[in-house]
């Protein structure tokens, strides 16, 4: 069944080594990983295991030390930084642990941000921004506010709206609930499940098992290597537990 689905991103024998002066860290060791259309995946692992590094690779934010990243069957090592930026803009949406909203801009302007580099006409933007915010579980009266006038959970919903405003097929989230209370975390996870139902592939990096158990597949990473795929246990999920 999964084999009939389209592969969006494929990591082939990916190694990533960080070098800071003399010290080198092998953050990814021979990682092979596929992201399919419609995926709802959790990547779990302890702190320092290489989750963020893996997400950097999937999100085309960094280049591997060796190995290949195929994006829709294209070898990305041959793409320029500019072409990678375009792919990120159109195909990928990012959600961060600390939201990473720009506080001097309004919520509207924050969500609009990814539409600017590809010069989406202003006339289309208002609709796209509103649609994204509603899809992310936000409320339209936030649009005129500044992010710091909102709660953490609300800010994360704005961040999700920013990630999906261009309607990218893939949404990548790095510890999206790491800075939130349980109630807000639950809302965020439900938002991701919703997005997945609407056709986005969702990859969530987390070290929180209750978050991971909400996903359809769980991959565990340890010391830079993927240890295997696990079935989630829905009864131990954030969604089943609360309220």
């Amino acid at each position, binding site marked *: 069944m999964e084999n009939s689905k389209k592969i969006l991103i494929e990591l082939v024998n990916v190694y990533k080594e960080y070098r800071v002066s003399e010290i080198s860290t092998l953050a990814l060791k021979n990682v092979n990983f596929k992201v399919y259309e419609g995926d709802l995946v959790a990547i779990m692992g302890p702190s320092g295991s290489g989750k*963020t590094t893996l997400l*950097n690779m999937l999100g085309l934010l960094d280049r591997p030390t060796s190995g290949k990243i195929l994006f829709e069957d294209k070898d990305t090592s041959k793409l320029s930084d500019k072409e990678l*930026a375009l792919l990120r803009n159109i195909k990928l*949406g*990012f959600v961060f642990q600390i939201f990473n909203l*720009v506080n001097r801009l309004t919520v509207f302007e924050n969500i609009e941000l990814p539409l*600017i580099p590809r*010069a989406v*006409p202003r006339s289309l933007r208002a609709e796209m921004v509103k649609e994204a915010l509603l899809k992310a579980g936000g409320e339209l009266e936030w649009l005129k506010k500044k992010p710091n006038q909102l709660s953490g959970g609300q800010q994360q919903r704005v961040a999700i709206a920013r990630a999906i405003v261009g309607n990218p097929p893939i949404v990548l989230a790095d510890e999206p609930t790491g800075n939130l209370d349980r109630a807000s975390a639950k809302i965020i996870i439900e938002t991701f499940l919703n997005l997945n139902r609407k056709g986005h592939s969702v990859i969530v990096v987390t070290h929180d098992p209750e978050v991971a158990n909400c996903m359809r597949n769980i991959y565990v990473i340890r010391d830079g290597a993927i240890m295997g795929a696990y079935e989630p246990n829905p009864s131990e999920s954030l969604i089943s537990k609360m309220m």
Partner: protein
Amino acid sequence: MSFYTLFFDFIRLSLKALSERRARAILTIVGIAIGPLVLVMMSSVVSSYSDYIVERVTSLGQNAIAVFPMENYKIDGEDLDFIRSLPEIARAEPFFSTQGILKRGTEEIKVSIFAIDYTLLFEAIGSLKISEGDVPSGLLYSIVGRKVSFRDGGEQYFALNDILTLTIPKIESGKITGRKNINVYVGAILEEYGGALIVDPDSTVFLSPEAGKKLLGMKDWSGIFILVHDPSFVRSVVSTLRSKYENKLQVIAFSAIAEAISSVTDAIGFINFSTSLSAFAVAVAGVAATMITSVMERTREIGVMKAIGYTSIQILTLILLESIVMSLIGASLGISLGTVGAHMLSSRGLTIGGVGLTLQLAPKITPTLILQTLSLTVMIGLLGGALPAYRASRIPPIVALRYE
């Protein structure tokens, strides 16, 4: 279409970024404004005065030369004949000149008295025009300057055919032995000439040479006024005369004076320009410091923008736009203040020592000056923003996912 969308969005983002750190941006803008302020203020004032002075001097005739006897020398007919015999020379006429006091009701004013062939006078000073009367022919008829016949307030005191009583030095056998009064009629009144430098027609009483000799009682010529056929001959005539009359005659070419003034004002202009350049250099450093701080503070934000699809060139453009916007605001501020300053500076007037002439001229704020200043100031933005913008463009997108 899409270019404009992009352009205006980028400008908007830049303005938002600047307004977030308003105090810092304003201080930087003030720093930027100093260069254009100084440049506009000084250049416009210096060039208005220097242009005026050069224009006045050159109006005396590009082909005019005056010779004056040095001490212990008397010009005679032989000298005049020699000068007239030179092939380059169109005309050469001797003149008498002295100072006198004119009674004008209760007031007494100082006037110059200049006895010279009237036709030569008008030929040499092209812009000299008669407003009342005609060039007189009678011995006792003079041509008077505007300030002679009119009071400072503007009302006319002497009309045509009125009699002027001038007190002049009495000269006996080459020495001043006292004073005497002479009376002449007003035969013509000149239009206002404006301040002049070597001769001031406005406060001069012009007489014919015969009248000069007879009324003034001067035996010796005060000098010879020479017109050459073409301005290009001035140099050779001057050097011929200087070598022949080395210690006897002082030879002055008006075009040479204009050249000297131009070169002095060019030097002032250059000094002013280089002074402003140092202000510009300081501004570049200021912009660079401000922008590099701003970029460092926004490392994460820039990383996020990269992650969501902004290219390095776009980030570079955004940061560069911020510094260019600051420099444009600084330029407008500096140019406006410079314009105000220039008017204030020039309204004080400039008194030229010796000639006793006070000029009050509007500063010369030309489109060229504005454009030059503007482009220099935009250069500040480009230069000061270059390194910070480059640094920003190199921030890797992975910093968006780095938390400490």
